């Protein structure tokens, strides 16, 4: 297993280099360093000299990928890509274009993201599994069909609709919870509850359909028939036999997103005013802050790769037939 993990980690390096190159290319395809400098300096009374000073003080004075004026290795090392992307591999995120420390920003902002993402994941998964098992009990009957129609309808509605309805009913009309905002510590539940409810409601259609299809594959297996023949009730069959055997694909879906929970939810955080990393990324894009964008894209890629490795490990733990590296 160690060999397999090492192989996966090493294969991730060229992948991350490629991601960095693409991020840089895409970002500067629509935005020149001069435009970034002007966006930060403001558009009033700005001279070329001031733009140049800003570019030098923020290490943006180099060409993108190849420095024709430098000799030898300098042609590669004296480039924007080298200066901006390589420190990321030692997790040195540096300063944002606004002058704030990105490392500190991430550490501060990941907690609100987690406060929202963890309950959202747990409650979402449990709700979806329970609901899909409920439909499975009545499979191919009227309840199942109505449930499926409900799920398809729920899938078809935009997430923004759930947010607006949730805020309108729960926060504005019935006045149960704050419309938006955030406070750290134990009081965070005041602000996280509504986005969690909205998030769970918004994901119930997709989640239930997904888990139902996974569980349905198992229901027709021989061991399920045997369990029924032994006199187990349908509920017992589902919980004790079907669910553990369907865990493999369920784990694949869950474990891979666990590391990404740090990154938060772009839409929910923005609409509910939760100062997490999703919001951070969104603001960085709006403010054309390449330093934050590249750091967050890099971190997202690393976390996704970690998620995939964790999934492999989880496979090996849950299913003894799977042997990593063999």
């Amino acid at each position, binding site marked *: 297993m160690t060999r397999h993990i090492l192989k996966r980690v090493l294969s991730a390096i060229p992948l991350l280099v490629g991601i960095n190159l693409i991020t840089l290319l895409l970002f500067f395809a629509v935005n020149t360093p001069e435009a970034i400098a002007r966006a930060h300096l403001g558009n009033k009374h700005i001279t070329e000299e001031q733009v140049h000073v800003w570019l030098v003080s923020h290490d943006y004075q180099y060409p993108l990928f190849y420095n024709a004026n430098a000799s030898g290795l300098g042609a590669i090392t004296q480039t924007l890509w080298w200066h901006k992307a390589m420190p990321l591999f030692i997790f040195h995120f540096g300063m944002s274009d606004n002058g704030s420390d990105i490392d500190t920003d991430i550490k501060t902002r990941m907690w609100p993201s987690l406060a929202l993402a963890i309950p959202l994941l747990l409650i979402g998964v449990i709700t979806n599994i329970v609901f899909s098992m409920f439909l499975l009990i009545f499979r191919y*009957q009227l309840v199942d069909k109505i449930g499926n129609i409900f799920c398809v309808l729920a899938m078809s509605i935009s997430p923004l609709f759930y947010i607006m309805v949730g805020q309108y009913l729960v926060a504005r009309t*019935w006045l149960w919870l704050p419309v938006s905002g955030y406070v750290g510590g134990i009081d965070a539940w005041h602000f996280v509850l509504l986005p969690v409810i909205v998030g769970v409601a918004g994901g119930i259609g997709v989640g239930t359909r997904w888990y139902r299809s996974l569980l349905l594959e198992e229901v027709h297996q021989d061991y399920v028939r045997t369990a029924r023949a032994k006199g187990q009730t349908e509920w017992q069959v589902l919980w004790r036999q079907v669910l553990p055997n369907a865990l493999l694909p369920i784990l694949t879906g869950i474990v891979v997103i666990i590391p990404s929970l740090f990154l938060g939810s772009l839409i929910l955080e923005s609409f509910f005013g939760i100062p997490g990393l999703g919001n951070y990324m969104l603001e960085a894009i709006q403010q054309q802050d390449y330093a934050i964008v590249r750091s967050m894209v890099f971190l997202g890629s690393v976390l996704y790769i970690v998620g995939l490795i964790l999934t492999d490990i989880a496979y090996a733990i849950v299913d003894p037939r799977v042997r990593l590296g063999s």
Partner: protein
Amino acid sequence: MWIFLQSTNNQGNRARTLWYYPLLFSFCLCLTACSGRSPNDPHLNWHANDNVFFSSFATSPKTLDPSRAYNDDEIVFLAQVVEPPLQYSYWRKPYRLEPQSVTALPSVVYEDARHQPLPSDASPEQIAYSVYTLHFRGDLRYQPHPAFAMNPDGSFAKENLDPHRLATLSTPMQMPKLATRQVTAADYAYAIKRLASPSVSSPIYSLMAHYIVGLSALRQTLAKAYHPHQFLDLRAFPLSGVKVLDAQTLQIELKGNYPQFPYWLSMTFFVPIPWEVDKFYANPMVAKQNISFDTYPVGSGPYYIAENNPNQQIVLRKNPYYHDDFFPALPETMAPNLRALSGKRMPFIDTVVYSREAEALPRWQKFLQGYYDSAGVGGDLFNQAIRIAANGHTLLAPELYAKHMRLQVQVLPSVFYLGFNMQDPLVGGTSAKNRALRHAIGILLNSEDFNELFLNGQGIPAQGPIPIGIVGAQSGCHGMDPYRYRCVQGQPQRLTLADAKAWLVRAGYPGGIDPKTKQVLRLRFSTAMGLSPDERSTLDWLRQQFAHLGIALDVEVLQPSRFEELMRQGHAELFFWGWQADYPDPENFLMLLYSRNKMIPYGGENTCNYDNPRYDSLFKQMRLLPNNATRAQLIDTLVSISQQDAPAIWLFYPRSYRILQPWVGPVISQGIANNTLKYVSLNPSMRQTLQRAWNKPTIWPLLITLGGMILAVFMACYAYRRRQQKRPGQGS
């Protein structure tokens, strides 16, 4: 809570423990209910009856560094914390400067090229230097800050340098030793030097280097001395144009005559910067915690920044060392409730909490619930909040009026226009033919329709570059653009499409046909708009307007950075542009057409690249004069030239709308001053009463939801049991 759970675990009674969790949850809910708060109260750390002002901000301030902050969303915080030498009078209109941290308005002495003093009525050509002398108040003290807690040898108190404490620092106020000191003239000198520092990148450096003697030379010196991440003690670098005469007196020497300089002295670029704080913030461990001038500026103003979490909230607290400052005496003509405040010590509010609200809808809903004391109105919310009366007056929506809310309307010192690139061969230049084309477009571009359709009537149709409220602005038929309007019964009335077509004939494009090519005349409009549905409909409307004259408008939608690049390269033909003034002087608007400010080649604010020697000559005369009849006449002439040559079609002057809750004390609308928070008062007990009345939760939907869930579970159990009881073969 932890002890409670531990004790149950120790008892080992697992079944009993399981029951504690719902009980604990219920207990938490009861606590919330018993605290007297409504469950939707977002301000959990404060009470409604505290003397706290609640407001919001949509965009996080990029920087609060006084030498760099320039945007409105930055100045709104910074202006409460720092004190420039001058401020705008709270109540006088037109806007007028008055002393803030100085004892009197600065005196100015003009000098010739040999630094010999000139009489005050010397002609502008004689003036080689202007020397401003500022005498500061002796009672100015900085807010408490750890940087002022110093040992006699000039080093920082060692308690404030503890690495463990610094590593967990989130605000400078958490340091064990805080102190203050008196503000001196040297701090103002330090701030001016800081404008030239390469580590600061001040946006006004190039402008000030043009005027302040020695600033460019200082920049060169500092560039050589500067090393990243090292403290650059600016006290060691002299600036020839700035002299500290004594602890309270400063002299600033400018090149030539620049009568608008006092306006700059009312801006946050000229506030005192204590060197100790600059040094303290240069500590890498402090910078690592994102504590710097960008987040925690230090000043002697009425408030200091107690917490700066730009993602969540910014909290200002009353500066305990703020000097005596009393509400101004108001004339009899002003409202009695305002006059009742005269002579009272300011600021009135203890704490100000600005919460981050990126989205407009939640912000508005919280304001309606009483959780924000004021709210700006704009965009989609305008129709919910404002009604336009038949006579054109703006009124509050009835439901807001019934809640005794108040509306503040203010014309901003800004102008929005359609610009022509005067270097473009088709629409630019001073030929009669191209001028006629611009006049035709000026008539067909209906500001009134634009205002109604896309701005909800939030703008005022413009006649020239100078907005209402600024010296030189005219109303009615005076100052009317005669190339777009005619005077009917004392009011400007837009010329008709027939007039526009007549101008088009004079331009040589009858019916919009180019006689050379026999094709429809095609014009190119470049913009960074077009991403949102509203913007797309604006562009569609614009195409339709041009189609009325038979002109085809090619709309070029660009990324904002690409659009700015296009403008800087002078490749745009037609474009929208706006200008927000730095100070309320006509010079700050009329300079938009001064040839020395052309975008090509100077990169200046003259985006139309307009170049008219006569305009330049009159402008240079006008900007050096005080506000008198001669200046007024020159301003009128300059506006007339701009209307005649039409390098830009002046579309509208934006208005801002703000609604105040009934518990907010009387305030005066201010379009230019930013340090207005100190004048605001509150009635917290009224807020508490009304908040409670407005936020009684509706319980029945909760009961129905719970009942529905119980019923669904019951029905599911019932159906499941029935299914289980069926004999084999009866099921699926």
